[in-house]
């Protein structure tokens, strides 16, 4: 039997619906589904981990709330000496790969299913996010590659800016996907929200 024998279910099923607005949508949302995600926490003396990652991928593991990309992987800061690593769907078992490479230097955990990741963009995305995200997303304060762990309403989120569009990726705990989407619809309704993908 193959893996397809158990059908995966996204907690976003049925939740992403367009809302409000006349004319062009001010906010667009799409699920970045089926991502591979692993958690990486440096063991004591984490400096070596950075060296090995640099050697393997040619990038510096971010030591501040930033995101870097290399080799189809996204390294996203998730706290001091902590990251989540993202790979596109279909990649190999990411956690196993990472464990193979860094297992001695880092605690690697499977996180593929712990979060859903949404890409939220559009001309009014900042206004919509401001209705719950209590950090400064003005371009002078937060730009592409910047990462934050914070809140959206009462829901904890992990977000990073993708481009100047602006587009943001927002990772939300799986169990809270419903509450998050409710908040998002509420917040973006004024500007009109379209669902992509």
């Amino acid at each position, binding site marked *: 039997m193959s893996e397809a024998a158990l059908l995966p279910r996204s907690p976003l*099923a049925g939740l992403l619906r367009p809302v409000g607005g006349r004319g062009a949508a001010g906010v667009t949302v799409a699920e970045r589904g089926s991502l591979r995600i692993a958690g990486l926490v440096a063991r004591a003396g984490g400096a070596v981990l950075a060296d090995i990652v640099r050697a393997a991928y040619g990038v510096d593991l971010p030591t501040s709330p930033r995101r870097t990309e290399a080799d189809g992987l996204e390294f996203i800061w998730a706290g001091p000496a902590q990251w989540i690593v993202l790979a596109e769907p279909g990649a190999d078992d990411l956690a196993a790969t990472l464990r193979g490479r860094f297992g001695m230097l880092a605690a690697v955990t499977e996180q*593929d299913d712990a979060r859903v990741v949404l890409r939220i963009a559009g001309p009014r995305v900042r206004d919509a996010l401001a*209705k719950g995200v209590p950090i400064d997303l003005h371009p002078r304060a937060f730009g592409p590659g910047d990462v934050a762990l914070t809140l959206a309403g009462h829901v904890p989120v992990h977000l990073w800016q993708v481009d100047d569009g602006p587009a943001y990726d927002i990772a939300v705990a799986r*169990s809270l996907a419903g509450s998050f989407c409710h908040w998002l619809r509420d917040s973006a309704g*004024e500007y009109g929200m379209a669902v992509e993908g």
Partner: protein
Amino acid sequence: MNVAGRIVAREANGRSSAATLPTQPFRLAAGGLVDRSRTLAFTFDGKRYAGHPGDTLAAALLANGVRLVGRSFKYHRPRGILSAGVEEPNALAELRSGARREPNTRMTTAELYDGLQAASQNRFPSLAFDLRAVNSLLSPLLVTGFYYKTFMWPSSFWEKVYEPLIRRAAGLGRAATGADPDHYEKSTTFCDLLVIGAGPAGLAAALAAGRSGARVIVCEEDFLLGGRALADRRRVEGRPAASWVTEAEAELESLPEVRIFRRTAVFGAYDGGTYAALERVADHLPVPPAHQPRQRLWRIVAQRAVLAAGAIERPLVFGGNDRPGVMLAGAVRSYLNRFGVAPGSRAAVFSNNDDAVRTVADLAAAGVPVSAYIDPRPQIPAAVRQVAERAGARVLTGAVVQRAVGWEKLLYVRVANDTGQEFVVNCDLLAISGGWSPTVHLTSHAGGRPQWREDIAAFVPGTPPPGMTVIGAAAGDLALADGLAAGARAGAQAARDCGFSVADAPVPFADAESTVIAPLWRVRNATGKAFVDFQNDVTATDIRIAEQEGFRSVEHLKRYTTLGMATDQGKTANINGLALMAEYTARSIAETGTTRFRPPTTSVAIAAFAGQHRGREFRPTRLPPTHAWAQELGADFVETGEWLRAQQFSRPGEPDWLATVSREVNAVRNGVGFCDVSTLGKIDIQGADAAEFLDRVYANLFSTLPVGRARYGLMLREDGLVMDDGTTSRLGETHYAMTTTTANAARVLQHLALCREWLWPSLDVQIVPVTEQWAQLSIAGPKARAVLQAIVDPAFDLSNQAFPFMAAGAGTVCGGVAARLFRISFSGELAYELAVPARFGDALARRLMQVGNDFGITPYGTEALGVMRIEKGHPAGPELNGQTTAGDIGLGRLLSKKKDFIGRAMAARPGLTDPNRPTLVGLRPLDRAARLRAGAHFLPRDAAATAANDQGHMTSVAFSPTLGHWIGLGLLARGPQRLGEVVRAHDPVRDGDVLVEVTSPVFVDPQGVRLHV
């Protein structure tokens, strides 16, 4: 307003075209910032009137000649409109109706819209004829403090007679009739400079900072920018001030980093440069458009703030100063110049300062005759006299109004001068000015004390919150030119402070003015009631009585008389009140001081603070991975903390939940069932010191746990009481998977982080929450292995030898799905907890239903889970309530003697080791048919129901289908030594005393045989 909105309003109104509306007799022929091309219909107390866009309700009522608009709080005196702004104490109405009814809405700030409905309040049966006005006759009795001195006899009369009467008479408007149907939002935003108030000073500051490229937010609570520049006929840069405002506004609009928030009052200054503001997004519309909130709460985080909130004019204190028709002089100018409305047909002006004479001029210019200009100063500047005389007013100096005469409207005023002459001045409008009080409120939210400035007879800001500068009238710079200059300076400085370079720009210039004042705190030989606080009916006499009775501190004065405690927070009252107290106590005003100002500066709807977080969105809801599946099966759900869990899966025909739950329990005990336990906290613990770390945080040992095995663990708080429990498995030499209770998951994680980072920073341990990653299903019952066998991939040997009780391992199921398997049991049956990546949780449940069909597999919920754990005597939430020790719940043996651990030392205190402490036992009803209830207290069988005989309580109960009767767990004093004894479970709040027999807490399979099969 959009067309749809207007149609709705019309229909609600039940009438049609504006053409049939009454004319507006007091609307001036020209002028003002209202849109005369459009007419809006509205009602007040059911009567229809017309107004224009740009009007406030107050302006429109005045245009229609309505003068009587409300009744006062205590004496039910007829009241009119005093002001043109947020300081209004009198003109309060119920706006809208039904679930949207808003009591106590200031008519002076309510923006007119088509179809607006307003009703007067606190009157019975009608505004014009208010029976409670008899209170006025009783007023000698109803003075300050009267209720503290009486109503004491007979004592039972207070709740039954006096209080209901007082309550009904008190209060102002009525709340809505149902849940607020509108939507509210909260938004956070950031800026370099927050400008509070868009009068001339604020606009100058915003321009100076905005031009530098700094991020500027301008908040203006009015719907128009301009402040007093809209109300006064002044000139800036040689142009009418209002057109300078228009240009400034246009320039600000053109600056990309400047944002203008109209209808937005900054109402609170909080720590860390955080300001709270309320945007009234749709209050000027009949209903908010789709997807729009009614109001939005802004949390503004600002590097710098400029407070340019202007000043509030003070009334003068003389007899009958509350008559409808007595109005603040500056407000009169607002109505004339901004709204194009004459607030009266014959006026007089009474003022102690040079500013109010503008009102004389503006009235005359608008064609309203002014009978007299009355000024207590023996000498007044020639310029003032000239202006008044040119306007045709008789100038009375050294003169005061002793009494305003009339009832529902002003008829005339009685004036006396310092030579003892008395005059009667006919007027239906008396414009008064006692000087201006800077709007210092926001400067004192962080504790700053306003300072008295003798020269302007006003309090000015003391120490404002960090980062705030105060300018313009709010700083006591009452002259327009000074405000403009200060604005330009403060704006530039703020931008520089935030790292922007600012070019020197010319300061806008303005015409000169005089702000000279001679304080007059009360008219000494006034007759009749002289009001200080209009809304709360506090008179000069009340203040004298307070002084006499020793309530001399301004804070005592306030609390004893209620001065300044009304909806307007004494904006027009406080300074007069404390000045009178200063006079009565022969202290200076500076010594007397102000009462403390607190947020909000103007009242804010409760719903606005709640924003989106109400109803079902009050708090987030966490859904376990099998939620959709459980919903399809028609499960009932129960809130457990933030989670919504399946409580039971009722089937058609089942009479009640008990039948359902019993069926589920029986299925597990006799066959197989499964339950989603994903909500348990799961924490991944790795690192070279992981074992040592667990030994320290758990009371029992974990370093000795072999790889591939699980162990029950007990965690104490530092104070020695139980914090949490759960099973933790060793997945590798340096790798553990910890579980916590659902309720304590976050708390435990936080606690472990504290231990790691703060207590023992040199341990190499990594702690990662993985609750969300795994869907974890408990598969329990004698046939559990058989079902599991059908889904594990071949490599997995499930035999009792290979995978015994408390084994833990990893493998794959259903053809390659990664899984973790733990042979642990909460039910006491052969049981496994199977974890798969959460995305497969739903499908796994469905698959189990399929493969388990032949075994009669039964999904069960939290109720059955609870029943089985009670049957097994496992402690859970009600036993781990933060008040119990390990010994109390029968787990004293887990406290390791071989090592140190958190809580060890404090757990040894005598109070926690007292042998008399209630300890866990099982209970069963003597009469097996009887029902048990948790929360009952234990009494010795035949003892009286007194506290002295209280020996503990029933913590958990369940109907045990296995035993066929109710069972319970409880904490009973010396319980384990009393097995077999019969005690009384006393439950008076449910009238349910039951005799129960003390037993072992383990009701089913005490040897644990079933676990090991």
